[in-house]
């Protein structure tokens, strides 16, 4: 089990870097979908037997449906619907964001040395992987100009938070489900993007154009 969990988490981290480096929005959306699907394996792999098996399965299934299928599907639909161009158009270039991501990885791994998991017997790779994913998400939101790419960053951030949620799943299972509310945001964003389009107030979904309000 250990090696399977490690493998999943390393892949999650690699996918973070892939998203940071990808210049095509559709490819990035699919990468995030893959990441979500991988994460949905974790509840099952991490199950200690302390939780009801049905609950674990539902959590995994829910994560798969929401993170792996529904939200990415919605985003791809929005891309088609709003005829969004496929380039990601970053503010910070791909190589710098990749390097920032790598730097974040190093920091996350060294920080996680200090963050000892209170409950022993857990996977040590979980904390750094979650931190890296959250950091990558923040980076994406901050360094991308396009609304879709920002929403994608939010999804990645959410994935990182989801991993943290798994750590407390057997102590406070309710909190993990509360995280689903974040997906509500993502859905709202996607709807907002489509609305942008329908509204025709902004001919491109470049948040750089959202500059009417400033000092």
């Amino acid at each position: 089990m250990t090696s399977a969990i490690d493998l999943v988490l390393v892949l999650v981290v690699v996918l973070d870097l892939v998203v940071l480096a990808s210049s095509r929005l559709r490819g990035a959306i699919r990468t995030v979908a893959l990441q979500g699907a991988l994460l949905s394996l974790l509840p099952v792999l991490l199950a200690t037997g302390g939780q009801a098996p049905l609950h674990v399965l539902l959590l995994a299934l829910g994560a798969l449906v929401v993170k792996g299928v529904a939200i990415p599907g919605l985003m791809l639909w929005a891309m088609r619907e709003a005829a969004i161009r496929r380039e990601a158009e970053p503010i910070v270039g791909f190589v710098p964001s990749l390097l920032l991501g790598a730097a974040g990885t190093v920091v996350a791994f060294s920080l996680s040395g200090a963050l000892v998991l209170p409950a022993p017997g857990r996977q040590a790779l979980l904390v750094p992987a979650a931190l890296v994913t959250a950091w990558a998400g923040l980076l994406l939101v901050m360094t991308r100009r396009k609304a879709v790419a920002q929403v994608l960053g939010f999804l990645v951030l959410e994935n990182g938070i989801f991993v943290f949620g798994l750590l407390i799943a057997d102590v406070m299972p309710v909190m993990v489900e509360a995280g689903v509310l974040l997906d509500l945001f993502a859905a709202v964003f996607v709807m907002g993007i489509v609305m942008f389009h329908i509204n025709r107030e902004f001919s491109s979904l470049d948040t750089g154009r959202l500059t009417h309000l400033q000092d």
Partner: protein
Amino acid sequence: MLPLLVLGPLLLAALAAALPGGRWRRRLLVAGALLHLPGVAALWLRPPPPTAGGWLGVDAAGLLALSTTSALFLACAVYAQGYLAAHPERDDRIFVSGLLAVLSALTAAALSRHLGLLWVVVELTTLGTAPLLYFRHDGRSLEAAWKYLMVGSLGIALALLGTFFLALSASGPGGPRSLLLPDLVAAGPSLSRPWLRGAFVLLLAGYGTKMGLAPFHAWKPDAYGEAPGVLGALLAGGVTSVAFLAVVRAVQICQAAGEGAFARAPLLGLGLLSMGVAAIFMAGQRDLKRLLAYSSVEHMGLLAVGVGLGGAAVSGAFLHVVNNGLTKGVLFLAAGNVHRAFGSKHVDVVRGAARRLPVSGPLLLAGFLAATGSPPFAPFQSEFAIVAGAIHDGHGAVAAAVLALLAVIFVAMGATVLRAVQGDPGEGAPRPEFGDRLLTAGPPVALLLAVLLLGLWVPRALAALATAAAATVGG
């Protein structure tokens, strides 16, 4: 009792959404406010024990925020009658039910004794206010709503991460394995330190974003600038107070765990930074509502400074929650009236508001004086308490910095407000149909009277409550 306070407005919101339309829908706002306020008043007289498995309960800090919100909501509800009547072309279904839902969420946040529940309801306030921001259905309000949601969602996500960290710090051997505030406070020193510190930083960033502390304030001028006056008042007086309460909860837990100093230092820094940023952006600000937004950043900074100083300044900060909330109500509602009457919120267009709007114009001026801490208004009392507390505890440099920033802000804000209020309105497109009415001018006047009253005489119960709230965070 407590669940009723939360569920009542929610039921009314559902009713408002279900009603086919007409004048009755907007009256539900007043009905909700009139049911809510006595309920809150009853909490003052006889605080009930925690209910709903300990998830809901009353404490001093929560009651302060709740009372402010409730009083503000009543004023906004009455004002909204006039506001919505003046805009019959806009569908008020979402507006009315959204406001009631936000009231419910704010009540739940103020009463919440569980940090998970707190997070959920703060998130709901974010989601609930976004469609209200888009009430005018134009490009600018869409942009404001987008930015509000984007920045707000990041804050909310960080706050959830912080909540998870907190849960992890509490789930070690001997930990309370719960997110109930009393459990966490009681467990204090047995919480895992590194996780607790991480949790505090994330909660501060997350809820600090909701509060609008610099450097997380980017959404505030845009959202407040485009929000209808009612919503601006509720955001600046209610939502920020509740977000401040959430930060206070985090400080409370740190204090109990012996990490109080760790928690206070960044608060103090962010507070001073916020005041500085507000001072810079208020200078030369030509947009009235954006000016008020930066004033809100300033006052959130002041709250953070008060709690960040610790000691004698803290009770002043809690008093300031009430004073700031009510004053923001005066300012936003008055500014809304000015905006409507002139069809603009720019001082290039808005001139001589005192002549065209004999009530709202002077009201804006009085609100400005109150917000900048001039006697005899209430914020003077609380700001004085914060500064005096700082000096008393030997933080002379902080006190000097705060006073200097307050002086700069007074001048900067005064320049813009005076330009709008004084002078000759000129011939430019008078909109007489949007003059002062009882329903739109009355509520801010009432709020101003309350601010004046609190400035002249602080009720003993209120002072006691502020002291009690301060005691939980080392004041």
